[in-house]
């Protein structure tokens, strides 16, 4: 923070070194987070998932479309950890590639939502007045629309493209983000320290960047972490209905949907992708809950 205020920090910082440093709220939050075992577990699982999905092309034991019709559907074995599907394709490889799609959709669509939502919410909350009323009214109206149905319609009508999926999901999820950010900004705007900043003669931009944004970062991080799982869920839902990703590509949702068709004969085709999907959702939710408790000392006190 000190560095954010000063251009040449070296000399000053060494002069300040003699004083005991304080613990910022963020450091406090991190300490609390580290004590929360479930959140740490979530973080580890999530990191593992991300690393695996990034390295998939190099670590996947088979090609995701290589068929082996002689083999057919075979139960898990040493060669095929998660078994193979009816075309003899390695299920582990397909789950790995599926995680690339699912996680990518999760992160990119959430980023889309994040960008629109934060911008919209901040402007509405900070400008206030009529602009705020109109902007939030638009959000209210959009809220009332049956979005999941629209997304299905979009995917059917315009074909199943990943780009469209990002945009469509991002377009739905930004609404809540905008509401949350606006609420936070509005709340902060009436805090005395923001009034103090105004009376110090700071410009709007300075107030925004130094006093408001650092203080809403916590809730934004928390909500982002909780949005990713709902986006992943939405993508899986679409893929399950056959509206998401195109075969032979796979995502967790489409794998589960194949698994359901052959649930009686080859249950492993359902169980493994389900477990991986649920595990990821668990990890993200635990992490999100942990972050919320860590950032909001009020809830962590009891």
């Amino acid at each position, binding site marked *: 923070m000190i560095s954010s205020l000063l251009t040449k920090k070296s000399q000053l910082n060494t002069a300040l070194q003699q004083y*005991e*440093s304080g*613990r910022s709220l963020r450091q406090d939050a991190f300490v609390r987070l580290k004590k929360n075992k479930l959140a740490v577990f979530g973080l580890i699982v999530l990191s593992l998932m991300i690393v695996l999905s990034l390295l998939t092309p190099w670590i996947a034991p088979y090609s995701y479309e290589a068929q082996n019709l002689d083999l057919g559907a075979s139960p898990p074995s040493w060669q095929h950890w998660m078994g193979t599907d009816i075309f003899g394709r390695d299920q582990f490889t397909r789950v790995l590639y599926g995680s690339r799609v699912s996680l990518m959709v999760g992160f990119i669509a959430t980023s889309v939502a994040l960008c629109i939502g934060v911008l919209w919410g901040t402007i509405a909350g900070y400008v206030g007045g009529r602009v705020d009323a109109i902007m939030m009214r638009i959000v209210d109206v959009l809220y009332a629309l049956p979005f999941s149905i629209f997304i299905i319609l979009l995917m059917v009508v315009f074909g199943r493209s990943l780009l469209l999926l990002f945009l469509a999901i991002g377009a739905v999820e930004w609404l809540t983000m905008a509401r949350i950010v606006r609420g936070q900004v509005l709340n902060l705007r009436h805090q*005395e320290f923001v*009034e103090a900043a105004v*009376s*110090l003669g700071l410009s709007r931009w300075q107030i925004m960047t130094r006093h408001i944004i650092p203080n809403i970062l916590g809730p934004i991080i928390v909500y982002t972490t909780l949005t990713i799982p709902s986006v992943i869920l939405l993508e899986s839902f679409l893929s399950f209905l056959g509206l998401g990703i195109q075969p032979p590509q796979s995502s967790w949702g489409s794998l589960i949907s194949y698994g359901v068709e052959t649930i009686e004969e080859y249950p492993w085709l359902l169980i493994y992708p389900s477990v991986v999907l649920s595990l990821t959702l668990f990890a993200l939710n635990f992490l999100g809950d942990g972050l919320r408790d860590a950032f909001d000392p009020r809830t962590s006190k009891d």
Partner: protein
Amino acid sequence: MPLLSVSNLTTRFYTREGVTNAVENVNFSIDEGELLGIVGESGSGKSVACYSLLGLVPCPPGKIESGEALFDGKDLLKIGERALRDIRGNSISMIFQDPMTSLNPYMRIGDQLTEAYRQHKKSSKTEALSRAIASLEEVGIRDAEKRINAYPHEFSGGMRQRVMIAMALISEPRLLIADEPTTALDVTVQAQILELLKNLQEKRKLSIIFISHDLAVVSNIANRVLVMKQGEVVEQGEVAQIFNAPTHEYTKKLISAIPASGKPAEHKFASSSDKLLSVENLYTRFNLQSGSFFNRKNEKLTAVNNVSLDIYKGEILGLVGESGSGKSTLGRSIIRLIEADSGSVRLGDQNIRSLSPSDLRKARLQFQMIFQDPFASLNPRMTVFDALAEPLITHKLIDEKNLIQTINELLDDVGLERKYVRKYPHEFSGGQRQRIAIARALALRPKLIIADEPVSALDVTIQAQILELMLSLSKKHNLTMLFISHDLAVVRYICDRVMVMQSGCIVEQGETETLFNSPQEAYTQSLLAAIPQIPSATG
């Protein structure tokens, strides 16, 4: 034989951060018809002690470690939850600090009143209802029969507290525990509620335990006083004895912290003729939006109504008024934290109201503000150093070499140790934070400081320290200050001149002692009459 006698009461809280001794080995008793005051600052355990008696301390994290509380021959701490329930709201009732939040907002007050009565007396609904109406009338609520169907939000703060009292008294208890019952109220309303409690006590031979942080209020109403500090009772005795011959250091400190009982401040000078700021015909109105989005009604509330005032160089001008009088709005309108609708504000040869936004930003270094809530007035993500450096750097008042030196001097000025400079606000106590806020306001060496209730959120002993600090700083730097407060004693202590504000207008102004000794306007008189008098001051 006392009505209630408490001995060796110890209550602790077991939290993640460690164990706190909220109440430590407390002994006291109260007789039939007696009014016992318990005084202490926040964290002194005065409320917890009483909550422990009635089983209202949440366990966990709380735990009553030991003690005995004999009431009617029964030990309240041993009889168990079921038996306690028959006592709570029946023979021992409670009222609380904030009548706003202490009544259930979702329930009609009639239901809230009858509920307790029916629970304890097993009476019929109609009987309970007539009792409720009688009870409301007794506490001075007119049209009780009609208002019994109203919701709490339809009452004003004082009326709500009356409803609370009616609710507490409906089952004719023998003991009433009042936990800071007037703290959230305006001083005139406080006087009425105190009067009411006193009358009820006499009429009904009721025993009352009156918990408060305000020694003056307690001394006004109680027969006997108990002084608590950090969970322990440090002194108890008759009111006169406590005031005239306090034995414990802490009691002495508390008494000397009451502004009016200390020596009055040496007021600097009657008035200087050097005008610093002059406000003329200032109006500030707010839109009151009611109704839904579609059927919006715009009513205007005139918060500042044709106010003109002058502030002279070097003086501390007090602005007193009750909540809703518009005193904060006036302060903020002067420095354009709120835009006024019309009028002029001149500082030197500048009309502040006609400055362009960028000129206004530059001009802001001439006037600074100190806020009420030290927990909200500092950015939680900035260190002390950042908070103090920010104004200096923004206005390019200083080069880097002198920055640390200047900030150190500021810290010395407000009596904060230099080694804290890299700490964050949440690592400080309320008093220390207010010192940081004062340093921030001083950093720009402003011509005018507007202090909006700067000591209202602080404990009395801390309040005294901060007032002392503000006085010494104003002398040292020859500060000019507009001091906004609801607390007349504080204003009398610190201000050279006082203005009284009521519903947006200034009703009276004058030099402090003149105004306090011979108020002209009826409103000022009623305000002054409502100040709790301290026994030692009267005799």
